């Protein structure tokens, strides 16, 4: 038996899954002030229906997203080692920022040494302010993290009560500001997440001894609770990822689809390219900053089934706020769902209540109810269509760096609209007709997010950068580093190195059984020519266990 729970902003959804069906699903309003309480209530209800022991529990939670969004994270100092380049004023990340001397270049060569006195001075100031969390980020630390480690060692020696994160251990990808932001957010939420992890771990141990506990990530894969303790930021935006993976689980087809998750107040739109979710090419955007958190490309628009229909200055307004559920389900005012229900004669809930509410609005605008519903429906379909088209073009117009990428220019041909979320059945068929494609709705669509959480497998991406001229390689994540001694090192050797680290890191993260599932997604090699001879080679290889499902999953009965 499997359990998936998605603690969302409005609702918490949970499913108990076994074989190929959902045995029990729960939908409950989220208590924003006590996520844990809501989570455990849903868990208890699901466990009460589990006839056999639960093997695996996967949680998706907005804890870190909320902590970052509301600025509740702990006060954190950011130590930057930017060296030459953009002005320091470009780094508006933390109000508590110190800029340190030091410089590394793209080949990992030391250009300038940090000044230990300056480091001491900064730490004394941080200590005097009573700040206990420190994030350290250096430009090109992914090529050589000597300076980041140097600063960390000083902190560990002098201020053992300060908690330090260094950026290269969090991500080894290029983009210093994103690395600094991700490191800063990690340091900021580490304690709060670990407190939560402790409590959940204990609660689950008490309730379902012997079951594995996993956390859902923004990239649509899971990680063990243990692994999450070092990288809380990976848990942001896991809710939309759960929905998208739920859509993939329910459809299981290699088509180009758009997944439209219509919730109460917002609609999340994501793309499946031949059945694979599309990633945000620039990383997750958190509080206005791009990060190195790998997340799906999601366009979120403030429009949902419960968006209120109202009038202001004689003008029709649709949302963006939600007052209550739709009038047909006992809500206080008419909503988008009511308009679809009336226009398309869907007969949802109390159809009379829908009509009454909409009639009142129509009266205020001096129009007929049919005309009003048509306007609302057109507006909603238009907004959704615009967002979908925008996502296509964004994907098609991503930069290309190779000739073959330009010659084989990608274009998105849509096959299907997949509806997810409670309001999907009312809106999706019409949207699909507008886009001139078929649509897909499943009886589990309203809890697809929890289904997705219950079924997804762990993910892991490992990148290796090899510089044979300097005789070194670096590995991300984790900031590992090693020497290349082998003469005539080839791309194949770099790929083997990446595979080896995928297996090793995977093992450490409790991902047994997936090591042979790695797929290479990045293979680059460059000759380093000095004079007219080859002085070495540079390789960048990426291998990943891509988003997917646990082996025992074989589909959901319709």
């Amino acid at each position, binding site marked *: 038996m499997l359990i998936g729970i998605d603690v969302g902003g409005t609702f918490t959804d949970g499913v108990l899954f076994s074989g190929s069906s959902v045995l029990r699903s729960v939908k409950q309003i989220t208590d924003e002030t006590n996520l844990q309480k809501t989570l455990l209530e849903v868990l208890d209800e699901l466990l009460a229906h589990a006839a056999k022991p639960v093997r695996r529990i996967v949680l998706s939670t907005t804890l870190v997203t909320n902590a970052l969004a509301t600025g509740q994270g702990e006060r954190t100092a950011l130590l930057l080692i930017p060296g030459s380049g953009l002005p320091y004023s470009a780094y508006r990340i933390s109000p508590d920022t110190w800029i340190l001397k030091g410089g590394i270049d793209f080949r990992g060569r030391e250009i300038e040494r940090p000044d230990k006195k300056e480091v001491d001075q900064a730490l004394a100031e941080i200590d005097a302010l009573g700040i206990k969390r420190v994030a350290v980020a250096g430009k090109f630390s992914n090529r050589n993290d000597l300076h980041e480690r140097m600063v960390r060692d000083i902190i560990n020696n002098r201020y053992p009560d300060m908690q330090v994160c260094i950026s290269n251990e969090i991500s080894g990808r290029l983009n210093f500001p994103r690395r600094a932001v991700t490191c800063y957010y990690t340091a900021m939420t580490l304690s709060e997440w670990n407190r939560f992890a402790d409590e959940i771990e204990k609660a689950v141990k008490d309730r379902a001894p012997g079951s594995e506990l996993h956390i859902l990530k923004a990239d649509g894969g899971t990680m063990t609770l243990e692994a999450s303790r070092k990288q809380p930021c990976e848990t942001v935006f896991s809710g939309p990822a759960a929905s998208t993976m739920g859509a993939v689980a329910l459809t299981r087809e290699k088509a180009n689809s758009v997944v439209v998750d219509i919730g109460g107040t917002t609609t999340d739109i994501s793309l499946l390219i031949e059945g694979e979710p599309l990633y945000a090419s620039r990383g997750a955007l958190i509080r206005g900053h791009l990060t190195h958190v790998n997340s799906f490309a999601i366009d979120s628009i403030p429009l949902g089934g419960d968006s209120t229909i109202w009038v202001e200055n004689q003008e029709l307004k649709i949302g963006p706020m939600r007052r209550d559920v739709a009038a047909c389900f006992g809500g206080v005012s008419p909503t988008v769902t009511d308009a679809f229900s009336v226009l398309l004669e869907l007969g949802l809930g109390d159809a009379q209540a829908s009509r009454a509410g909409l009639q009142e609005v129509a009266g205020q605008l001096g129009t007929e109810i049919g005309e009003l519903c048509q306007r609302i429906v057109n507006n909603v379909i238009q907004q959704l269509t615009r967002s979908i088209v925008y996502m296509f073009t964004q994907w098609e117009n991503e930069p290309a*760096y190779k000739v073959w990428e330009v010659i084989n220019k990608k274009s998105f041909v849509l096959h299907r609209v997949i509806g997810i979320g409670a309001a999907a059945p009312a809106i999706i068929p019409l949207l699909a007709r507008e886009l001139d494609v078929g649509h897909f709705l499943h009886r589990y669509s309203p809890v697809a997010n929890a289904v997705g959480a219950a079924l997804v497998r762990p993910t892991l991406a490992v990148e290796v950068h090899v510089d044979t001229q300097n005789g070194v390689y670096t590995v991300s994540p984790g900031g590992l580093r090693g020497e290349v001694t082998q003469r005539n090192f080839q791309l194949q050797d770099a790929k083997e190195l990446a595979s080896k680290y995928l297996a090793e890191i995977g093992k450490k993260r409790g991902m047994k059984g997936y090591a042979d599932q790695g797929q290479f997604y990045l293979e680059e090699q460059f000759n380093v020519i000095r004079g007219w001879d080859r002085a070495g080679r540079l390789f960048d290889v990426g291998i990943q266990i891509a988003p997917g499902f646990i082996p025992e999953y074989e589909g959901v009965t319709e």
Partner: protein
Amino acid sequence: MKPTGVLFFPAFDWAISPTHPEREERLLYTRDQIFEEGIMDLPQIREYHPRLATAKEISRVHFCVPDVETRVTQAHLVSAGSALVMADAFMNGEVQNAFAIIRPPGHHAMTVCHGNRGFCDINNEAVMVEYLRQKHGLKRIAIVDTDVHHGDGTQEIFWHDPDVLFISFHQDGRTLYPGSGFTDELGGPLAYGTTINIPMAPRTTDEGIHYILDNLVLPILEEFKPDLVINSAGQDNHYSDPLANMSFTAQGYAVLNQKLRPDIAVLEGGYSVETALPYINMGIIMAMAGIDFSNLREPDYNPARFKESPNNMQYIKSLVNKQLENFRTRGERVEKNRSQGKEFETIMKNVFYDTDYLHEEQRLDLRLCKDCCGFRRISSSATQKNGRYYSVFCVSLPAACCPSCAEQARKSYQDMKDKPIYNYIYLQDRIKDEFRCLDTTTGEETIL
């Protein structure tokens, strides 16, 4: 404030040969630097996707022998197409200015194209100029070539076009490829003075180049009043460039672009792949986007290292005065040439393609028209790299062609069709935006 458009196309899968300066690695460290800096994430920058230039867009400038498809690699089409993407972004008002960081480069490519010379097949800036005229209705354009090598291709293409001001400063042609770009190269008889060359002594520094910029380039741009300014942005004046001998710095390049304020910059040469390019490209992006670049420097940068010699400053000052005068007296010179009473001016020349190692024989006849800058007839022959010999005849109508020249030019093409002494006959009709090519062996005519 609108953003600066950046199109980064490093062609990571294209090289002239594995160890050639124009190889995959060339923009690798620039990629590392601009990605690591995260400059593309800033609101001041907007990144663009490249596209292929069409055969027609290429044919507005070049006579590719035998045709565009055979002559031009796809990498060159992407490079030229990328410049056009930047042109559209700028003209559509999406960006305040634009920088195409692209390879392969283009400024040694001339009107007739038999192969690769100076690492160039297709002249990216020239293709962009004719595109700006055709698609966006511009007329007067200035190109400032800041590459260390003389932009002889661009010069040749606009040699007879008084509406394109071409200014090139470069290391003295007596000491560097392509061995041209002297002060007496001032343009054809009807476009005299709109080609301005500034040969600089080896080891000229930021100070020298900025003196030229302030006292020659900026004043004549001001007087010429172009609709648009292009920086043909080579980066090999840098002190670390392996193919040249100048002493320019990344700061120097950034300041240059800050002062020049080009509407569109297009990368040309620059082969110090590790020590210069990452920093110069950052510097140009920052200067164009109005980002403070005072924190930008090369790892071995030392402001006290290069000092301009008094002798060289003396030379530069006299050079500036001489070229200012040449530019300012251009009107009289053109009138004098026009009133000679000659119908055609004939120029014979031999063009060497260093990359492909071939020689082209060329004869050009320019009509000394009273009403416009005249149409051109070119006969050209060369044995190409694959051993095939081509002899071709080309007719070109200028963008601002008068009706009489247009009529005569079209007639020249028609007349030549009956005389199969050439393998191919071409008509570049920029007025109708129509480009014809006749294969005299098969009798087949293609029209773009």
